[in-house]
């Protein structure tokens, strides 16, 4: 049988999927052992015990200095910034996309500006944001908004335009005015597409969040990683990276589930 026609069974698929992960762990442990054998003080590839220690310290014991459990305080601070930022982006993207996709005069006025804004690399304006909004929460949230809103706006505009023209004509023959078409035909149909756009923007949102936290912050997941980098504390950095990855994965899965639950008509119809 040709290779292109051979498919793994369900069990085989799980096993082959697990192999690369297992290989990664084995390779890490081997090299970690070799280095620690040579120098027990080595910090580059910590042992499993040091990870367990670090996780115990960061996730379960209050910090001696602040009295807070650091991992949870960092997670709460980061997620708050992420959610506010992405929420503002979603709202802006939805409003702008529906108006822009539906109303030719609106799009004639605003589309060129958004197109230009979306070309600016967001990190390049981070200094401007710090100067304008200070080093507090606002500049971090604005960076996330600036980094994700233009994409969501343009994606939403595109999704609105993609709705079959027949539906818009049909609504007009049912005597719908512009507002009614927006409320009953366009908005409900781009909602699940908005959820998709937000989900796809989460990766970029994390990037901007961590960048902003690395430069100026007093707590947050990105702040912590860059802080402990000074002490080569790989035993903290790696669990933090794994935790961020897990959070990103869970958010993505949650958005998918929520979309399927809220919009049962969506998905099959794509």
């Amino acid at each position, binding site marked *: 049988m040709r290779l292109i026609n051979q498919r793994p069974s369900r069990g085989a698929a799980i096993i082959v999927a697990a192999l690369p992960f297992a290989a990664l762990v084995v390779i890490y442990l081997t090299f970690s052992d070799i280095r620690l054998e040579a120098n027990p003080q080595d910090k580059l590839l910590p042992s499993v015990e040091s990870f367990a220690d670090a996780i115990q310290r960061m996730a379960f014991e209050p910090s001696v200095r602040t009295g807070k459990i650091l991992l949870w305080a960092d997670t709460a601070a980061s997620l708050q910034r992420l959610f506010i930022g992405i929420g503002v982006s979603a709202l802006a993207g939805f409003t702008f996309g529906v108006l822009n996709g539906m109303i030719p005069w609106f799009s004639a006025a605003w589309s060129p500006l958004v197109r230009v804004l979306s070309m600016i690399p967001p990190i390049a304006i981070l200094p401007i944001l710090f100067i304008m909004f200070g080093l507090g929460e606002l500049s971090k949230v604005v960076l996330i908004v600036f980094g994700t809103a233009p994409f969501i706006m343009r994606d939403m505009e595109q999704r609105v335009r993609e709705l079959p023209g*027949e*539906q818009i*004509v*049909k609504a007009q*023959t*049912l005597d*719908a005015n512009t507002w009614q078409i927006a409320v009953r035909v366009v908005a409900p149909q781009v909602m699940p597409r908005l959820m998709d756009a937000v989900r796809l923007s989460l990766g970029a949102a994390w990037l901007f969040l961590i960048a902003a936290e690395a430069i100026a912050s007093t707590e947050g997941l990105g702040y912590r990683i860059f802080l402990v980098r000074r002490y080569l504390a790989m035993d903290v950095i790696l669990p933090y990276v794994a935790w961020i990855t897990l959070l990103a994965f869970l958010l993505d899965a949650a958005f998918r589930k929520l979309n399927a639950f809220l919009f049962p*008509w969506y998905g099959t*119809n794509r």
Partner: protein
Amino acid sequence: MTSGTAQTGDSRGALIRVSQLWKSYPGTAVLERINLVVERNEFVTVVGASGCGKTTFFKLLLGEEQPTRGTIFVAGKPLAPEPGKDRGVVFQRYSVFPHLTVLENVLVGLELRRSKFLCRSFGRRRRDEIEQCERMLERVGLLSSANAYPDALSGGMQQRLALSQTLITGPEILLLDEPFGALDPGIRADMHGLVRELYSELKLTVLMITHDLSEGFRLGTRLLVFDKVRVDPHEPDAYGATITYDVPVSRNRNNGNEPTIAALESGV
């Protein structure tokens, strides 16, 4: 357009009147010298080769596109330059809203008419409207699927839904753009029956585009053929199509029609 009360002075006159209609795009003439008078309760089918401008003519009637020259009058008044509630429509595809269930797809027409801001009706009125929609769904044989989404329906059922969605608000004119083009022959025959019945029950004026000549003959009371009379072989887009045949169709289907079809097919 200026006064809210309908002018019914011309009630026994022609419902649709098209005079000296031309439509061209830059470099391409599509339609030329279209003149047409459609009386109330006529069932007009429009046939023609693909690219002969019948879909353009349909869009002009809908108000989706504007004529280059000439005017379309509906009930004696020039057509507004956008689609409106006096002309219901069913397209070949995408006629129904995928995010609404079957019942909601029909209900939405009533809600849009009554509730201009919230776009929804509530309470007793809503119950009455749902009842009205359920009667309509029962009429077209969709009541058992009332809570399904259109995606779960077959092509024929989706077109039944599109018809009931359009007809619930009671438009005088029904425009059909190859509504059965994507259906299997058996389903198509069922749909023909349904459309004929609705046409006589609701006293509709129907204008249907089809590429199937025999369908045009079987369904309509009058058949129009669109074709180009002037052709420049060096520049095929120089001249547009016009109405080349305008034949009344006898309702007595079993005699007399077949030879006419043959004659017309050889003519086209």
